[in-house]
């Protein structure tokens, strides 16, 4: 067994896991953070996307041991108890999710994009979501919602998007 300590959503958490444990399995099974989803488990679908030290990763492709000592943000860390993140609010307003399975991953990809680029173009957004597969809602409403959230986060008034 390997002892892994990560700073997740602002809190220091430790777990003892077998060496072959992925970061995703540790988050879900040991830390009870089940927001990141287990989809393909081989890095294709993006449902497990979390942010490690500011960068999105497929948490299914990272060993838990490789995350030891690092800072992890999951969907559970995006909203506070009384307030949704502007991206979540915007996804809600625009009906950007139906079944929602891809949602936690999509939102983390969108969050990382806006952290680095507060004014993304549509091609920027499409590139940022390239690793997140959605099979029901489709991407158009997500792209709209991200544009609106970006505008809100820049402090600009809401405006109808394409």
């Amino acid at each position, binding site marked *: 067994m*390997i002892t892994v300590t990560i700073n997740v959503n602002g809190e220091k958490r430790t777990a003892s896991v*077998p*060496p*072959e444990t*992925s970061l995703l399995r540790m988050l879900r099974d040991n830390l009870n953070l089940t927001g990141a989803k287990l989809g393909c*488990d*081989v*890095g*294709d679908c*993006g449902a497990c*996307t979390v942010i490690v030290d500011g*960068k*999105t*990763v*497929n948490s*299914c*492709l*990272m*060993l838990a*041991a*490789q995350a030891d000592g690092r800072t992890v943000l999951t969907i559970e860390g995006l909203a506070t108890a009384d307030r949704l993140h502007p991206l979540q609010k915007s996804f809600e307003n625009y009906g950007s999710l139906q079944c929602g399975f891809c949602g936690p991953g999509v939102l983390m*990809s969108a969050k*990382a994009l806006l952290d680095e680029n507060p004014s993304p173009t549509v091609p920027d957004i499409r*590139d*940022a979501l*390239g*690793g*997140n597969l959605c099979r029901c809602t489709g991407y158009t409403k997500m792209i709209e919602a991200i544009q609106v959230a970006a505008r809100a986060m820049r402090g600009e008034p809401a405006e109808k998007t394409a």
Partner: protein
Amino acid sequence: MRAFELVTAKDSRHAVALLAELSASAKVRVIAGGTDLMADLHFSSHVPDVIVDISRAEDLKNIAMTGEGLSIGALVTHTQIMRSPLIRDMFPALVDAAHTIGAVQTRNLGTLGGNLVTGVPSMDSGPTLVALEAVVSIAGPAGRRQVPLAEFWLGPRKTVLKPDELLAEIIIPKQNLSKPTHFLKFGLRKGQALALVNVAASFRVDWDKNIFVAPRIALGAVAPKVIRALKAEAYLEGRTVTPEAMAEAGRVAVGDAKPISDFRASAEYRKDLVAVLTKRALEGAYELAKAKR
């Protein structure tokens, strides 16, 4: 996933010591970004006994100019390549190639060294580096040895690395710094797609005579490994730079390719792609050469 033992290397020297010690009696694999290995561990029945984690070896994460040329550490990620001011300035083709790999999440994790070591013939890092005559520096128990990248692969997923060796550094030689180079990939989608064919073309122009100098063309996904299109290069060497010459070089390059038919594309389709992409890659490199003149 089946069980294995995991050891973490502090730096490249430690990693080589671990590999030398462990590989004598066990089946050992190295993990860096994990984007290939973690998927392999799911699908393959060959689970290693031990995995050496090199992802914390800081000495393999540098991008720097040295006396030999541009040195890129094996653990530099595709995202870091895309954002390096040095690489963006000298080799936009490397930035374009990195951008076509997987998606943001896999580019944040995946490393240049990993892409080369995995050794799939459709790898997107390969053609540009082969066209630029890159050399790889391999760390082993007796120190470093250098091998031209084009000779690093023995076939699909096979390299010259011995069990106690580690790919440490990729070097683009001094004489090719800022050499105009263009990379193109044709996949079935823009994101998360393997190349049906990828091509890099690189040459300088003798502007007094308006001729090709040192043309280099590398093709991916059309042979057991990334190959040079030697017939097309020979056709262009010393020839006057014209659109017709670039188109003809594309047709000649088809003769250098030995593609197979698989579920992604037929051999015939890949051959057509080689002609078109080679021509366009040469045109792209020429635009860059004019801009840098």
